[in-house]
């Protein structure tokens, strides 16, 4: 028995010694990048990181979908290389991070209103109507205001069951943010946030929870991430955008929502966008990284690898994936601003992916052992 104990202790020590040397690969043989955060873009990141690993045989990318808040906390604690969030950091959060954080937009999505109503195969809604449904002021499907909006279908005399997210989520944030923009009453009573105090309706956990209840309950309506709803082909409502058109959430309409003047730091919500083709509840989702990568024991290789990953995600290959699984790729303007932001990431003052002057072709650097020289092109082809 004693010998067994001794043996296990020794083998543990041996294993841990073997592990310690390959912690955060300084010599570049095995590189691990970890990130945590939002669940909304998880399927997209899942694929795009996998593709990146396939192209870079020695890199491992791990992503844990523990929620935007968890991602922000983990980044603040420096226990991950990047965080992911569907809600950009507010002033207080920025202050708490300890150093400047860059918002790297990766793709776009939307929040759709899924519903279940027999014999109603198309539904039109407006922002104020949705607000009033969730405030409990519109209780039945054949409420005159809903009927007025939907003259071509017959709405039944049935109670509306609104469904909302019980877990804090970026989807709730964007949904409520949209409602604060279009409904002053919502703004004063409910406000916007990742979790709210709901007046009417049923709570459900996660997209599967909301979709599950909506699908099984006649008369239910719920807000779901567009990717989820579109993949499952749930019936969704057309929303009236600011320009007055009734739009479905499609790749085109979500991308169109970004046709507004975006701020340079890309901290923007694009709900209720003015573009005529825009889907009103569209959103960006971001990866968050520190601008100065020289913290803790991060090496130049670590920083370079991270930047390579970011650039892959916004490269044409990375963006193509988004379109294939019902997310929307970034618009040209968003891409451009994001490239500029990535161009600010530096390690101890050294810019890792300088934003090239207009006219240069932007390529994703695949090399992983380029030594830093003073050349302005930094080894790019």
């Amino acid at each position, binding site marked *: *028995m*004693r010998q067994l*104990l001794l043996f*296990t202790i020794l083998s*543990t020590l041996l*294993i*841990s010694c073997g*592990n*310690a040397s*390959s*912690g*955060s690969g300084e010599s570049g043989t095995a590189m*691990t990048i*970890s990130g*945590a955060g939002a*669940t909304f873009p*998880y*399927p*997209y990141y*899942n*694929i795009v*990181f*996998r593709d990146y*690993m396939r192209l870079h045989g020695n890199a*491992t*990318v*791990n*992503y*844990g*979908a*523990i929620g935007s808040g*968890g991602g922000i906390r*983990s980044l603040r*604690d*420096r*226990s*991950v290389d990047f965080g992911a969030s569907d809600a950009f950091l507010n002033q207080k959060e920025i202050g708490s991070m300890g150093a400047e954080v860059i918002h790297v937009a990766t793709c776009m999505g939307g929040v759709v209103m899924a519903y279940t109503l027999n014999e109603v195969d198309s539904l039109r809604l407006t922002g104020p109507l949705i607000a009033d449904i969730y405030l409990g002021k519109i209780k039945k499907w054949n409420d005159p205001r809903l009927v007025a909006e939907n003259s071509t279908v017959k709405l039944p005399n049935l109670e509306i069951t609104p469904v909302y997210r019980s877990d804090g989520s970026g989807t709730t944030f964007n949904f409520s943010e949209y409602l604060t923009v279009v409904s002053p009453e919502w703004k004063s009573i409910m406000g916007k946030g990742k979790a709210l105090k709901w007046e009417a309706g049923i709570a459900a956990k*996660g*997209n*599967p929870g909301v*979709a599950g209840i909506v699908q099984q309950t006649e008369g239910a309506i719920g807000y779901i991430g567009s*990717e*989820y709803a579109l*993949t*499952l082909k749930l019936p969704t409502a057309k929303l009236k955008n600011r320009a007055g058109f009734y739009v479905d959430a499609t790749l085109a309409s979500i991308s169109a929502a970004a046709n507004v003047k975006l701020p340079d730091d890309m901290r923007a919500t694009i709900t209720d966008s003015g573009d005529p083709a825009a889907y009103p509840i569209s959103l960006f989702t971001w990866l968050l990284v520190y601008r100065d990568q020289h913290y*803790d*024991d991060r090496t130049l290789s670590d920083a370079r690898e991270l930047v390579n990953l970011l650039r892959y995600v916004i490269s044409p290959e990375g963006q193509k*994936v988004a379109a*294939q*699984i019902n997310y929307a790729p970034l618009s040209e303007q968003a891409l451009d601003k994001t490239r500029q932001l990535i161009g600010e990431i530096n390690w101890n003052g050294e810019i890792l992916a300088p934003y090239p002057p207009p006219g240069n072709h932007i390529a994703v650097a695949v090399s992983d052992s380029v030594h830093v020289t003073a050349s302005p092109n930094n080894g790019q082809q």
Partner: protein
Amino acid sequence: MNHSSSIVQRKRKDKTIRHLVGFFSLLAMIPLFFILWDVISKGYKNFNLRLFTEVTPSSMDALLAISNGDPIPGGILNGITGTILIVGLAILFSVPLGLFIGIYLADNQGKRFAGLVSYLTDLLQGMPSIVIGIIAYAWVVKPLGSYSALAGSVALTIMMLPMIVRSTEETLKMLPLSYKEAGLALGSSYTNVVFRILIPSGFGGIFTGILLAISRVMGETAPLMLTALGASVVHWKMTEPASAIPLLIWDFYNDPNLVDLIWSSSLLLLIVIFLLNWIAKIVARKWKV
């Protein structure tokens, strides 16, 4: 006093209760069969060799497969190896520690310190797994600067400890005092008495407790979300994020393209846990006190 009717009544009551006991015992077993039926019938489609040999598919692979009517490719190898790594480490930490604490408690019954430790062990038992995850995050992830299999195993160790302590303590307490006294009377050292007589005699109960503790933590999701984070590759590094089967089940549940995989993964998990339980029973029978 009419004795005969009283006896008849008493006998009837006896018979009724006996039937009730049988009936309710049967009812108690039914949920297991329902759950098994559910998991097997929904999981067998995707349950194949690939489950053990390939890593998790990406959403895209699944999407393409579904639209083509093919079974979803890939497997949960990264979850299997991750579980082995994390639970393996947890076993390394918790078994010696739990054994020692159990021995101490069995030997010091009635003393105040032991009573306190016993009480605190029960407390640890009742802690919700998510709180243990929060603690392990603060103790391991933050200082280490990274999510890791090690952090996950620390969380699982805290969860396994009370069970191992309790079963060791109770088993040793049930051993006749004469075992220990005879050993000591023959001049053996206390250490030898414990390791050569008591533990082997109580091996059945102790080992059962360990196996039950393992099967308990193999299915834990919440603490691992906050400590191990998850990984899409197979690796054996303690200080890096790792996956685990229950974590993968949770990931699949939240991904509309991968949701069908939750059943085959659950089936695998169930099979492993049931195997462990079966082994525990055989060992306990063989080494019966």
